[in-house]
């Protein structure tokens, strides 16, 4: 199947600096959740600006549904209707004086009728769980709420691909968990999600696929289970496996849980593997601590 969006051998350098993107290739498959995983300052944001046409590569090409990207005014409008971008700092894209007004901006720019825009806004706010904030001023919101407003502004455009630059940056644990839950729901509705992060746990809990990013290019791209449990591969990207994966590996080596099978996505999944029968601690359980 033709990927919805792909990049081929992109090269880009900001004036007077070494390349931020260096022969970067990436494939984004429709309906999947892709994590761009790598250290900060590696050029992930620059990549995202290329994926919606905000920046133009100095070499290489971006393909939208198999077609060479069109950087004309009309082409960009079409592109940005299909591929929405959410910046890392929500204050960089919220400008209106109320949440509902701000969310209406994108769909109005798509030329939709006010009635359609109204229902798009309502649905987007509901999907992000912030319907009660519709009439609030943006500057009276918390960081997590602002983040959701920014995402709602993109979701209201009903794009095929949603690009999220460091979606959980600056959020506390609870805010991040809530955000992950709504992103899961968007994924279930068939939206293609691409998010950048340096947080391997986030990639693990959300991504179907992972692209390892280092020094302006993608080292490897593949299924999350494979990429995130390969210590050598991760080391090349300057990362190390999550505690979860290390515990899972160690448990497998000691015969405490079945070898092979799917990588556990979160602590609960790992606990279930370590205690498959789900019985209470009767002394025969090999890992009584896991019951605590």
């Amino acid at each position: 199947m033709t990927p919805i969006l792909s990049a081929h051998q992109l090269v880009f350098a900001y004036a007077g600096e070494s390349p931020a993107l260096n022969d970067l290739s990436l494939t984004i498959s429709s309906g999947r959740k892709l994590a761009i995983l790598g250290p900060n300052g590696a050029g992930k944001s620059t990549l995202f600006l290329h994926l919606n046409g905000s920046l133009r590569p100095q070499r290489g090409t971006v393909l939208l549904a198999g077609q060479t990207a069109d950087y004309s005014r009309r082409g960009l409008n079409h592109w940005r209707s299909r591929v929405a971008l959410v910046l890392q700092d929500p204050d960089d894209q919220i400008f209106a004086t109320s949440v509902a007004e701000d969310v209406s901006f994108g769909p109005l720019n798509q030329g939709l009728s006010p009635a359609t825009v109204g229902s798009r806004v309502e649905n987007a706010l509901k999907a992000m769980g912030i319907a009660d904030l519709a009439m609030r001023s943006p500057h009276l919101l918390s960081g997590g709420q602002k983040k959701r407003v920014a995402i709602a502004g993109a979701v209201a455009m009903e794009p095929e691909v949603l690009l999220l630059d460091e979606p959980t940056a600056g959020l506390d644990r609870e805010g991040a968990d809530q955000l992950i839950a709504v992103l899961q729901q968007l994924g279930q509705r068939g939206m293609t999600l691409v998010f950048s992060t340096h947080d391997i746990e986030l990639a693990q809990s959300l991504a179907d696929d992972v692209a390892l990013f280092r020094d302006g290019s993608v080292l490897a791209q593949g299924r999350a289970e494979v990429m995130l449990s390969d210590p050598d591969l991760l080391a090349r990207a300057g990362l190390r496996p999550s505690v979860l994966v290390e515990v899972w590996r160690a448990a497998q080596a000691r015969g405490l849980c079945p070898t092979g099978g799917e990588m556990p996505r979160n602590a609960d999944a790992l606990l279930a593997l370590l205690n498959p029968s789900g019985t209470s601690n009767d002394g025969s359980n090999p890992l009584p601590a896991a019951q605590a």
Partner: protein
Amino acid sequence: MAIGTLDRAASQNRWRHRALKEKALIGFGFLLLALILPPWPGAVLVTLAVLGFTFLGARVPLRLWLATAALPLGFLMSGALMLLVTVGPTGVAFAPEGAVQAAGLVVRAMAASFCLMFVAMTTPTADLFGGLRRLKVPLELVELALLTYRFVFLITDEAAAMTAAQRARLGHSSRRRWLRSTAMVIANLLPRALARARRMEVGLAARGWQGEMRVLTRQVPVCNRMLALVVLTLVVVGLAGLML
């Protein structure tokens, strides 16, 4: 900060969901009366009526109202003091008509300020900007005002964060250092604001911005009974101001 206080009041008062037209009629109707009626008893009656709408109707929190009123009232009082005295050949002396003149001015200006404060403290900014658009104010001006308004908060936040960071490193521990540190904050704000503006341009372009900031504004239906009540009050105050 003053603008933050206005914003909080506008989003908290009981009439925040009322139509802009009703509030504009109160604010500007009574403003007109305050300007054309004799200060006594006209402006006094206007003050009473507008304060009635502010506190009994919209239930604006008194604390926020006082914080907002302090500035214009301060200006007013210091200005009025000047009217009490006159500079003559013998030096400074009490002006013979000064007290009456000053009292008239104070009462009238107070009434006028309270009228504007009523509009500012009961109307959410979104409604104000929506109203400006409907009044066909040139779009460039409305958008400029909108962005200025938004940036005021962003930049005040940044300045506050920078100041706190300087304080944490003892940057404000003496008058000299304070001056130096404050100068650095000011010097840093411009490039930061410009960088933010550039990022916002990318953010808006990503959402299909083509030079016009259109948003879906809500329009609350006007309540005719409310309008009738306001008109009635205006007429009563107007007549009373002329006849008493």
